[in-house]
């Protein structure tokens, strides 16, 4: 049995803070956990003495269920909290809410919050491991990790490979975390979408920009398709969803007209008929449901490695 280096940080706030060794360690550990979750009994006792609070100040289906399953399959004790049904409505501050939960002896906090930097703020002020499950338009690290893990199941070494991210890059925390992660793995990253939804600074992250979806797809080995985040858009960035679907929607006809087979990914939730058509989402080229499966394994790896770090 060999000892390994531990994670360089006691929190997972963003991919930006992780180094190449951290990524490697997470992916290797996730592979072990993928075997565990495909067993008849999908549970190991590793985190039996750990209590984890899932604090969701913003709506979520997949991420929340995925974290909860990951925690339960590691035998951790879990408490769930959602802003809608809590004292947040009565005017309590974030720090007070979290400190109250921690005084009930909670070891780790998984948090989703609409404000960018909310997790970093917590990490500075409280004594618990924090996992960012999405902070506003900033980062969603575990999504990027599971996306990269899923990509590496198709292409084991992403160095030099062409990965395209299509959609609402401006409002997407998935896009930013994906860019950080893929660049650290040595991939070439291109973003594609309407100019209004591509941030000006984006090329400073070492990615290229393409406004023509056909050209972008012809370049790509894998395309990660994102949703238009209407809930974060306070002004009109695109004339209509219908027009967006016309110019940037990915359908079977478009994919069939390319001279190669590319893999299509989507972090969910899908808006069928807008950014992706049903026949693509349900096709063999799409690995959307594999991403969801890998999400549990990757989150188990992250929680496991953080628990080891805490001791």
């Amino acid at each position, binding site marked *: *049995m*060999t*000892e390994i280096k531990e994670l360089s940080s006691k929190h997972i706030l963003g991919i930006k803070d992780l180094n190449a060794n951290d990524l490697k360690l997470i992916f290797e550990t996730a592979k072990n956990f993928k075997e565990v979750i495909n067993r008849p009994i999908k549970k190991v006792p*590793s985190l039996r*003495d750990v209590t984890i609070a899932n604090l969701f100040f913003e709506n979520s289906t997949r991420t929340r269920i995925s974290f909860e399953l990951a925690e339960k399959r*590691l035998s951790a004790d879990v408490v769930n909290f959602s802003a809608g049904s809590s004292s947040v409505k009565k005017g309590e501050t974030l720090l007070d809410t979290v400190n109250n939960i921690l005084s009930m002896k909670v070891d780790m906090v998984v948090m989703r919050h609409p404000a960018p930097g909310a997790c970093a703020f917590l990490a500075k002020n409280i004594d618990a491991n924090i996992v960012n499950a999405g902070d506003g338009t900033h980062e969603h690290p575990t999504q990027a990790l599971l996306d990269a893990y899923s990509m590496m199941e198709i292409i084991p070494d992403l160095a030099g490979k062409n990965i395209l991210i299509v959609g609402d890059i401006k409002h997407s925390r998935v896009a930013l975390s994906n860019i950080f992660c893929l660049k650290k793995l040595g991939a070439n990253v291109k973003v594609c979408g309407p100019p209004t939804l591509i941030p000006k600074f984006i090329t400073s992250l070492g990615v290229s920009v393409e406004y023509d979806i056909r050209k972008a797809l012809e370049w790509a080995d894998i395309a990660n398709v994102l949703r238009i985040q209407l809930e974060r858009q306070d002004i009109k960035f695109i004339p209509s969803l219908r027009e967006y679907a016309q110019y940037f929607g990915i359908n079977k006809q478009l994919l069939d007209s390319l001279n190669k087979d590319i893999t299509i990914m989507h972090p969910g939730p899908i808006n069928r008929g807008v950014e992706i058509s049903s026949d693509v989402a349900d096709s063999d080229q799409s690995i959307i449901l594999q991403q969801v499966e890998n999400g549990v394994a990757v989150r188990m790896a992250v929680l496991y490695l953080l628990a*080891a770090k805490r001791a």
Partner: protein
Amino acid sequence: MSRGRTILLDKRFELTLQRLAHQLIENYGDFSNTCIIGVQERGVLLAERLIELLEIELGHRNLEYGKLDITFYRDDFRTRKNPLKASSTEIDFLIEAKRVILIDDVLYTGRTIQSALAALQDFGRPEQVELLCLVDRRFNRHLPIQADYVGITIDALDEAYVKVEWKEQNSKDRILLFPAK
């Protein structure tokens, strides 16, 4: 690490493995309804060597064999200084109602085997589990766990360290005893 003393090597090492294989055949006959589980990582090397010998003796290759990694089941996970690297678990069958031969290289405190027994439960309820180990450090146990088949028994102090080296990895089969780790 200080220089170790060789306890078992060459011909005697080979004979010990053969004796263990023969003992298994005495008890398990044709190995029907039986599976062999090697504990990662070094128990796997021993298990594979024994399976080679068993297959020659038995004349068939139908032995059911799996590898078990116990990293996620360890009781010292959060008290160790550094986390341990997990190996793969490869058991693609259920052990429900089977006879299991659990194999590890060195039986020391018994904690690895305790974890392995807990891990095995996740693959079904075996009819019976027996433990085979190449080295039994009989005076160093922390738990009431004993082996059913033992290659060699070593009486050593707690701070001593026993290492089994394999041809496949270290060019030579031998067991070494070091006064301290």
